[in-house]
């Protein structure tokens, strides 16, 4: 398809599936879906001409018409395989081909006052509650992937932790895509009320065929509330992935995001947070690209109110013909005095054909702020390699040790043991180099 055909083909498809999408009886949602569809139809997928997309060409996605799995059958899941991604001591919500699977999910052991359920179910049970949040952290005008997602989403997850509650165990939402050409479009809303706390893990996995997985997560963190969100993007190697996380932080809230992007052929991840008075955010990311992978991370931190703190560290390891993109933007509003912000992006290029594009942007409209940013794109440090060699370590092992140590810094930040070990394992199996050992830590 051409970019023009995309604009007409998808809306043409829409008529066939519209009635099968969740939330039919919810009038505000019907309006929103229509607007989003119109918005997508007028733009199509983003093009390289757009500043926010200049390093990421999504035209490969246009070659196929991915369709939501409402007409076709939801695929079967190999549970042994799925279980290797399931974390211990968590509640799990499994979304297969974009649909909640009750049999594969496990929501036992949560307190009665906490709401953790699938989005389709939530739209039936709590449509008024959802109306307060849906589309409030991100509008479909953000860009056409968000519009696309709003129009087509088939299910998702709704988490609401009431004030002062602490979610007793982390919730893991596992997105699985089972078949070639399938599309999974999911929508999540996470609400952490004042002084509440939660940890949520988003895991993305899928088959080895080409498919499209898109997930938009809206997050609302109340006053003095706390959320840690982990994203483990382990899509199949031919997959297209779009993920967007949009956060609104109230006063004194804390938000931590750990983003591990290892999978997919073309993966784009957007994170945005709006910081309230004296709130804090920490954005950590690690992307590992091999073969011909293209991994794009976009972050935006909006300091809207005074005294907020943001810390960001993204690291990329790019080998073979992979390309990594980092665009990090920090905006400090006029009112946001005493802002403290640090942003860093460090890229390690392991082959001559690998590429890293990094673009930090600071826009500061307040005068009493502390903002720093730094980026590096480079190879392994020759002095360090020589130092290790002078300590009996052969050159190849020295290189592997340094590469692994570089990446592992991000893994070490993960305090949930089972998750930490899983990420480490995923990292080790993906490194093209042989002989990397966990023992080096």
């Amino acid at each position, binding site marked *: 398809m051409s970019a023009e055909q995309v604009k007409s083909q998808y809306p043409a498809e829409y008529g066939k599936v519209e009635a099968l999408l969740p939330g039919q009886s919810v009038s505000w949602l019907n309006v929103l879906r229509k607007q989003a569809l119109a918005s997508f139809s007028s733009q199509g997928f983003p093009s390289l001409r757009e500043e926010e997309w200049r390093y990421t060409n999504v035209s490969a996605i246009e070659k196929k018409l991915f369709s939501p799995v409402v007409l076709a059958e939801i695929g079967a899941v190999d549970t042994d395989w799925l279980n290797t991604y399931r974390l211990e001591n968590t509640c799990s919500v499994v979304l297969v081909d974009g649909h909640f699977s009750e049999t594969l999910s496990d929501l036992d052991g949560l307190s009665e006052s906490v709401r953790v359920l699938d989005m389709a179910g939530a739209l039936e049970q709590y449509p008024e509650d959802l109306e307060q949040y849906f589309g409030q952290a991100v509008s479909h005008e953000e860009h056409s992937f968000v519009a696309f997602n709003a129009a087509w989403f088939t299910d998702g997850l709704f988490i609401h932790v009431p004030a002062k509650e602490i979610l007793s165990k982390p919730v893991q939402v596992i997105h699985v895509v089972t078949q070639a050409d399938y599309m999974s479009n999911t929508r999540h809303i996470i609400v952490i009320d004042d002084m509440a706390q939660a940890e949520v893990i988003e895991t993305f996995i899928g088959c080895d065929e080409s498919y499209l997985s898109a997930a938009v997560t809206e997050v609302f963190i109340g006053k003095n509330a706390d959320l840690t969100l982990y994203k483990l993007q382990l899509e199949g190697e031919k997959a297209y992935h779009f993920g967007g996380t949009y956060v609104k932080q109230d006063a004194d809230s804390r938000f931590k995001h750990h983003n591990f992007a290892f999978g997919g052929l073309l993966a784009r991840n957007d994170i945005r947070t709006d910081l309230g008075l004296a709130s804090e955010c920490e954005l950590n990311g690690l992307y590992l690209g091999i073969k011909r992978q293209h991994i794009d991370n976009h972050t935006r931190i909006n300091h809207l109110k005074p005294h907020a703190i943001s810390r960001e560290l993204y690291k990329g390891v790019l080998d073979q013909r992979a390309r990594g993109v980092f665009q990090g933007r920090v905006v400090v509003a006029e009112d946001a005095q005493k802002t403290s912000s640090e942003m860093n992006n460090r890229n390690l290029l392991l082959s001559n054909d690998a590429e890293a594009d990094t673009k930090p942007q600071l826009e500061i409209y307040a005068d009493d702020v502390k903002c720093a940013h730094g980026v590096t794109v480079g190879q392994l440090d020759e002095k360090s390699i020589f*130092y290790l060699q002078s300590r009996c370590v052969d050159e190849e092992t020295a290189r592997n040790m340094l590469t692994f140590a570089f990446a592992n810094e991000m893994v070490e930040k993960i305090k949930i043991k089972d998750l930490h070990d899983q990420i480490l394992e995923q990292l080790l199996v993906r490194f093209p180099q042989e002989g990397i050992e966990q023992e080096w830590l």
Partner: protein
Amino acid sequence: MLSIKNLHVSVGDKPILKGVNLEINAGEVHAIMGPNGAGKSTLSHVLSGKSGYTVTEGTVTYKGKDLLDMAPEIRAREGVFLAFQYPVEIPGVSNIYLLKAALNAMRTHQGLPEVDAFDFLTLVKGKVKLLEMDEKFLYRSVNEGFSGGEKKRNEILQAAILEPSMCILDETDSGLDIDALKVVAAGVNSLRAADRSFLMITHYQRLLDYIKPDIVHVLADGRIVKSGGPELALELEAKGYSWVEEQVA
């Protein structure tokens, strides 16, 4: 142990070592002194195999083998150890792991089995005590955030564990306070043995008070311009390098 003959080394087009001759026998301690920029660190780097230097002339024989022909890690495994003037920080690789990896690589090279975990810990803890270090340093990343003096001490800890035959110490004394100098010197002295030699690069007599050299050399402008007994260091301290340079000229 080590025989350097007419060694000429350039960086790019720039000659730095211009015919160095040096014979170090087993069990001997040699000191090299000399003005800044004379080529002392260059010599230590070339001996340990750092890239970026071109040997344009000369030979280096170590235990009868051509040293310059060996990869850096092979030299290390064969027992050539360099304590760096500026040790590198390696974030993310723990000190204790590197010690173990180094020791095992060396043992494998010598045809010995890898050291077992318990024996290794006993060995390391003993050496940590010898150098009056805190055991916490073992579990930190290699040199990361170490003070100047702590880095130097860590270099000697590595030497104490690897027990190399040819120990090259490049300004190990610089950055050490007086007490630390005594501890490090005691560590070095405990390594002195009939089958182990030392090449110590230093600017100060002070180190030589603690570690008595057999021979002192002056390296100036890429050549060894004078050699003598320990008294040469005292003379240098009193008269400066211009005294030697005048004598040579």
